[in-house]
């Protein structure tokens, strides 16, 4: 590796690491216990944990079948395959705020579906805890889908064929062969999905708003705390950073498979 490239690599590393170092250095360690256990932070933490858990469950229920479809699409014509993959990839690359706007245009009170919901059933989705979950599902499901799909395409699928030739039904193959085969991938995907949901900010504030106990998650609370109490904002940021580091340790080398064309 040429020396200038090493220099650039070190600069790149600094870009990634130094901000987090500053966060840890500037943290109000003495007041941290009091800050992290203050009522508004605990309320936001509780809401974040509940919504991110529900979002992860929804992602599992919807995402595993989608990952299987994606894995099976290897035999489909190229345009279909590419479209399917692009549909799953776009939310991953989209700025979350744009995702929030898109959700608003679909499910808002004047949205394509939201307008009908409001007029026919009197149901409004924005400003509800459900809206927080929907925003989190939108941004975090791709993580689960790609993790599971990676596990599927990396696994030895012949046991499935063997089971099928021995007379197992499709359901039996799925339950007793496919699921155990990709269980580690599902677990890793679920953890990544949960972490991404926990950190969701842009789509949440745009689509769900910000109300304590209802829609004000940890990242939203952190953003607002910067207005009045920067120390509180840093404390919340540290909580989220700790979660991210814990997830990293938990997953070790099982990183999310890249977006492959």
């Amino acid at each position, binding site marked *: 590796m040429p020396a*200038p490239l090493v220099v650039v690599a070190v*600069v*790149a590393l600094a870009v990634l690491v130094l901000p987090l170092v500053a966060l840890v250095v500037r943290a109000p360690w003495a007041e941290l216990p009091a800050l992290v256990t203050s009522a508004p932070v605990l309320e936001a933490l509780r809401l974040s944990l509940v919504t991110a858990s529900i979002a992860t469950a929804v992602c599992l229920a919807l995402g595993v079948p989608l990952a299987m479809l994606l894995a099976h699409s290897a035999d489909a014509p190229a345009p279909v395959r590419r479209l399917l993959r692009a549909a799953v990839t776009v939310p991953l690359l989209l700025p979350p705020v744009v995702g929030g706007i898109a959700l608003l245009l679909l499910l808002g*009170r*004047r949205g394509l579906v939201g307008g009908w919901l409001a007029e026919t059933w009197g149901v409004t989705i924005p400003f509800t805890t459900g809206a927080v979950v929907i925003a989190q599902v939108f941004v975090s499901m791709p993580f689960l889908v790609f993790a599971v799909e990676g596990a599927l395409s990396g696994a030895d699928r012949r046991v499935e064929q063997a089971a099928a030739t021995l007379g197992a039904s499709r359901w039996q193959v799925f339950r007793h062969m496919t699921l155990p085969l990709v269980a580690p991938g599902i677990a890793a995907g679920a953890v990544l999905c949960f972490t991404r949901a926990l950190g969701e900010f842009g789509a949440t504030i745009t689509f769900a*708003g*910000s109300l304590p106990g209802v829609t004000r998650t940890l990242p939203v609370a952190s953003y607002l705390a910067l207005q*009045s109490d920067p120390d509180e904002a840093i404390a919340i940021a540290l909580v989220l950073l700790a979660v991210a580091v814990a997830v990293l340790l938990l997953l070790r080398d099982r990183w999310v498979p890249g977006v492959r064309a």
Partner: protein
Amino acid sequence: MTRRPRRGAAAAAASVALLTVGALGGCSGSGALTPGDLPAATITVFAAASLTESFEALAAEFEAAHPGVEVALSFGGSATLASQILEGAPADVFASADEATMRRVVDGGATAADPQIFATNALTLAVPAGNPGGVTGLADLADPGLAIALCAPEVPCGATAVSVLDAAGVTAAPDTLEQDVKAVLTRLVLGEADAGLVYRTDVIAAGDAVEQIEAEGTDAAVNAYPIAPVGAAETATAREFIAFVRSDAGQGVLADAGFGAP
């Protein structure tokens, strides 16, 4: 990479990276004091979200009057901007939506001169065009059946809203507490909220999308907007811009936008 990178490319990449780091470090230009015309310079103005339209107009006029001068504008919640300035953001001028937020910047030692009040603003009850919620007064903000958007109490428009609601004896039932007044306005423009408290200037800025409901008690608290030069390298250009905002021409632009005189 498929082909072997050339040394020149690597060196270029290195210098770009270093330049980026240098730029991230922030460098505020200091204009030399020249009597008469201003030196070519870019000044960065941090202004409250409610000043968006009027300061865009003011900046354009200022640039037209001073060739070579560029005004870079950054709008946001006053409190957010104040935090950014106290953390060393490269601003030359700060215009806040209330005096308390400006005081934070002054106390933090970031202002180069005393803040001057240049405008006033009052809250008003606003609804989406057509008033779908049938809102008539401040009391409607307590209706749990309506979608209500207010500013969070931590930001200037929210602090003012608290004063207004307290004076009216109304306990609001908000559905969302936003970061700045433009976010509340957006909820109304999109029809996601039935009512909200925004500044009178915001209703004018939103055009036909939002209606103002004349309601008793919304003027109970009035915001005064202070402006001050910030940063160690206070420039003649920054001072000149502040003078322009407070001049007759500048005050005319603000009055057109719906601001009250200081």
